[in-house]
């Protein structure tokens, strides 16, 4: 052990408190999580392979046997399907947010962060932001695969970009649910499975993979009001893809607004719950 003087000439500490510190702390944590990702690239790779597999499986297994607006052609189904796969991808990625947070708790890192004079929400915000970056990367790869299997947009680039904006916002919203799950379970393994289980009904009782008008009435109502469906419907409209639901449920009539509202409501609600949990977490 070398001996060095303890005295350090430091410039004054940065201004504390408030939104500025909150943003800065979140970015420090986001950077940390992004650095981690670059050190474990296999996580990103597998995260990309999974949705690509869904595209291929759904396209070729269901394509041709599922009718979209009376049309059973495989290409038609693929164009219908893609909005659903995109939405499924951004939401399934959120299981990773929860697992990451559970892992930090498990390793004692959350204790360290909680003992530091940092913003209370930053650990979670930093994590969800970093996960958003990862999700965006996955979407880029997925778009390329989708174009390869015959998916096309028909309403121009700006609307398509707006659709991807809605998708990422939905993913960000759902990652706060994942964060809450991660803070509430004992192990990263539990966070992964607990973070996935609820996503199956949410993504399947929706208009993502089949036309919801073919469902029994009570299921159709759930599907029409499912936040997930709103985003899928909005994407189909903005991409100009087939299979836009003709349902007269409000979210299906105004899917862009519905998607925005749902996502924001989820963020506000689950961010509040997760940050509260974090403050008292592990104790």
């Amino acid at each position: 052990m070398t001996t060095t003087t303890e005295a350090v000439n430091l410039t004054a500490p940065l201004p504390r408190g408030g939104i500025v510190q909150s943003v800065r702390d979140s970015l420090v944590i986001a950077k940390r999580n992004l650095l981690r990702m670059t050190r474990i690239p296999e996580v990103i790779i597998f995260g990309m392979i999974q949705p690509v597999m869904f595209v291929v499986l759904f396209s070729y297994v269901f394509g041709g046997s599922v009718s979209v607006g009376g049309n059973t052609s495989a290409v038609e189904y693929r164009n219908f399907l893609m909005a659903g796969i995109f939405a499924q991808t951004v939401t399934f990625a959120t299981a990773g947010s929860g697992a990451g947070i559970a892992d930090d708790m498990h390793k004692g890192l959350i204790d360290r962060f909680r003992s530091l004079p940092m913003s209370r929400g930053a650990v979670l915000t930093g994590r969800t932001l970093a996960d958003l970056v990862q999700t965006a990367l996955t979407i880029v790869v997925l778009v390329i695969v989708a174009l390869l299997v015959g998916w096309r947009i028909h309403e121009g680039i700006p609307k398509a970009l707006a659709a991807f904006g809605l998708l990422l916002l939905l993913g960000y919203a759902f990652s706060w649910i994942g964060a809450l799950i991660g803070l509430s379970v004992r192990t990263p393994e539990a966070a992964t499975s607990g973070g996935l289980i609820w996503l199956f009904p949410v993504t399947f009782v929706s208009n993502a993979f089949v036309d919801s008008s073919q469902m029994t009435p009570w299921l159709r109502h759930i599907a029409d009001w499912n936040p997930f469906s709103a985003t899928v419907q909005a994407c189909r409209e903005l991409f100009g893809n087939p299979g836009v639901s003709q349902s007269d449920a409000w979210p299906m009539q105004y899917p862009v607004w519905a998607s925005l509202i749902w996502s924001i409501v989820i963020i506000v609600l689950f961010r509040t719950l997760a940050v509260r949990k974090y403050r008292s977490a592990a104790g």
Partner: protein
Amino acid sequence: MPGAIYAEGLVKTFGEVRALDGVDLDVPEGTVLGLLGPNGAGKTTAVRVLTTLLQPDSGKAVVNGIDVLKHPNEVRRSIGLSGQFAAVDEYLTGRENLQMVGQLYQMSGRDAKKRAVELLDRFNLTDAADRPAKTYSGGMRRRLDLAAALVVSPPVMFMDEPTTGLDPRNRQQLWEVIQELVRGGTTLLLTTQYLEEADHLADTICVVDHGKVIARGTADELKARTGGERVEVVVHQRDQIAPATEVLRGFGKGEVAVAEHTRKLTVPVTGGAKLLAEVIRDLDARGVEIDDIGLRRPTLDDVFISLTGHAAEAAAEEAEDAARPGGQGGRGSQKEKTK
């Protein structure tokens, strides 16, 4: 005037278990307090309350003159915490870990960078600075963890079992670092299961059991209460217990304790190693064949037995683990490793 760390009547329960049952502490500035106790005595809970991680059910805690319950964020600025398990991000390098912690202590990026270089140098981690912490040895991780706790040179430090799981060489090294820190004027509260460690590092020791402080004093005072050192002899055959007992009685400062089935005799003594030689000579002269003989210094168990009449046992912290999401696995697995 209360000390740099002050607690009064701290109570914390986890379900049925009273992890803290009215703990009072007072650590004068610039001194070291050792919280000594077995697993589950409430040591970690006390540290977690004092470092703002856990809300007590009742009681008062003041660190650096700041009320822990009323102004936790102010307290966080002036403390460093080195937990039971090296809490570093294993996928980040040592340097990145320290820079991150510096920034979260609200240093500017440049200051955090500068400070990281200094700490890496001070803790002999410069060569490993740009390797992920995953590749570090246990001792290196502990040093990195400690460095992270020292980023802002906090006037008050908390260390929860800083050397648990380290080999003797690394333990020695860490002790030196801690001593250097204390010479610089830092007030330190450390928890340990080892009397030897508390003896080595602490000015005052509080022995805790079942959430209560059951004794306080210097290491010497505690040892005096425990009866100091003792000679322990294991004879080769049972029929030699009687003559051996007679020999030991001549040297002892108290009763000779005999464990028949293990053929072990124990007697409190004073006089150290020199006396041991005489004991061996006399036993030999009586024709007693010995399997083992040694001078035993008091251990935590001895302190416990003399203070409470029972051996140290684990309880409350396990309850806390169970009550903490994420806590159990991490701690449990580490504890197993240290066994």
